[in-house]
């Protein structure tokens, strides 16, 4: 009874960590530029696919990881420079279509280059699960949870303690004022895409030994990440992390106790309920219209 619950919680926290990273990716870009990047899920996919392909080609895991992260970062930077920056003043729907177009494009390229079949990575430190009060904890889950936690702490330090991080925050509050203070706003926007891509790539790599990946894997992961970000209140980093964990755990419990066929639906049912009652998410600031 308890073992079963613990099992669901563990798998929920594992998946939730990935959603949290994806949600953070949304939040970072949203903060810097008020863009929702629907290609965030493709970053996760590219990280997972590139690393599996490289490992399959004979590279050691660490080298594959570094190359995959670098590749994804380049994709993120290129996306901002070539597709987002030229349309900076366009309205919300236009930019949504651009990022969705980008995600379709990236998916198409991935399918062409890496094929349609699913791929995987070997677990980083053995397949033998750890017994935890009767629940089986995959060693890879520890990697997922540990690495995610590390990244989240690192980001917290970056935004609160470093000059560049503070500059990024300043840009999100008031772009014009930041510009007047000598912050290179364009650089900040480009960098936010690079950072989100790195987050996505790492998430994609560490979860691939558990869930497999394929050229299509980014769609659902991206949408769940978006749910996490909205649940926490757009632009709220800590909220996105909480939202991600919440979605992951709800999904695992729902799949376990209610219906596994509706696993993917729980996240969206929750988000609808939350938005019905709290139109700015769980931790979002209530905005008063200024007229």
């Amino acid at each position: 009874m308890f073992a079963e619950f613990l099992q669901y919680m563990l798998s929920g926290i594992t998946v939730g960590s990935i959603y949290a990273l994806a949600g953070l990716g949304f939040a970072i870009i949203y903060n810097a530029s008020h863009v929702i990047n629907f290609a965030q899920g493709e970053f996760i996919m590219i990280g997972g696919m590139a690393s599996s392909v490289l490992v399959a080609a004979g590279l050691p895991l660490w080298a594959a990881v570094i190359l995959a992260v670098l590749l994804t970062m380049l994709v993120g930077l290129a996306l901002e420079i070539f597709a987002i920056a030229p349309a900076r003043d366009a309205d919300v729907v236009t930019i949504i279509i651009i990022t969705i177009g980008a995600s379709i494009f990236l998916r198409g390229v991935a399918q062409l280059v890496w094929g349609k079949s699913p791929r995987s990575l070997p677990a980083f430190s053995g397949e033998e699960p750890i017994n935890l009060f009767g629940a089986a904890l995959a060693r890879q889950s520890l990697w997922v949870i540990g690495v995610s936690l590390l990244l989240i702490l690192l980001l917290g330090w970056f935004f609160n303690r470093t000059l560049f991080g503070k500059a990024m925050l300043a840009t999100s509050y008031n772009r014009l004022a930041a510009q007047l203070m000598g912050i290179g706003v364009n650089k900040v926007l480009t960098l936010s895409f690079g950072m989100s891509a790195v987050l996505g790539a790492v998430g994609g790599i560490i979860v691939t030994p558990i869930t497999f990946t394929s050229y299509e894997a980014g769609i659902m992961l991206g949408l769940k990440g978006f749910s996490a970000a909205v649940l926490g209140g757009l632009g709220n980093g800590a909220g996105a992390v909480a939202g991600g964990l919440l979605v992951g755990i709800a999904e695992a419990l729902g799949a376990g106790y209610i219906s596994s066929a509706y696993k993917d639906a729980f996240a969206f049912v929750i988000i609808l309920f939350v938005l019905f009652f709290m139109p700015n998410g769980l931790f979002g600031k209530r905005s008063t219209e200024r007229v």
Partner: protein
Amino acid sequence: MSLLRVDGLSKAFGGINAVADLSFTINPGTIHSIIGPNGAGKTTLFNLITGVYHPSGGRIRFQDADVAGLPPYELARLGMSRTFQNLQIFFNMTAVENVMVGAHLHLNPRVLPSLLHLPVVKRRDRECRAKARELMEFVGCGAYLEADSASMPYGALKRLEIARALASRPKLLLLDEPAAGLNATESREIDEVIKRIAGQGVTVVLVEHDMKMVMGISDHILALDYGRKLAEGTPAEVRQNPDVISAYLGAGSA
């Protein structure tokens, strides 16, 4: 008999009182000005009266109804309309269409007849368009009858908003800084427009920084500071009120 009666009105934003325990009345057929330094709560007061904000406390009576907390479109139905300090023009429409939206209540639009463009709909629309053009001439932006609102200059847009508000045939019209950003000539013209509106029996409430205009056209002035009433009375009375002089006009201009 007052047209608008505000009683103990308050609005707090996160613990700070933007408007605090404010009471005043506005009599029909007058031009009433609200003055005060920046941040005195003038626009917040407008937003409370017109239903854009919910009051934290107090009562607002319009004609004989208790209207505090009613949404703006209900208040418009009762005969209240306004303009905005930051323009709220429909930039996705032509100038004359903007004014026609103002007449929305009087067209009684229904979906099915609109879909089919029944003759009655067409006739009403034609009349509405003609009326809208008249109003644009009346406020002095007749040069832009066929213009796209997005291509109009700032001064003309301010007038367009007034025309749009007038199209709803208000009894009470609230104008939030109608002369802000205008040059001296344009200000004088707006001054004339306001007088003409009042001359047609519409009660006007004005938030304005242009003291010359305020003193010239107001029947009654309410001075605010930090959301509270500082003074009230005729222009001559308010001008001589020592509190107003020190708080608003400043020692130098006294």
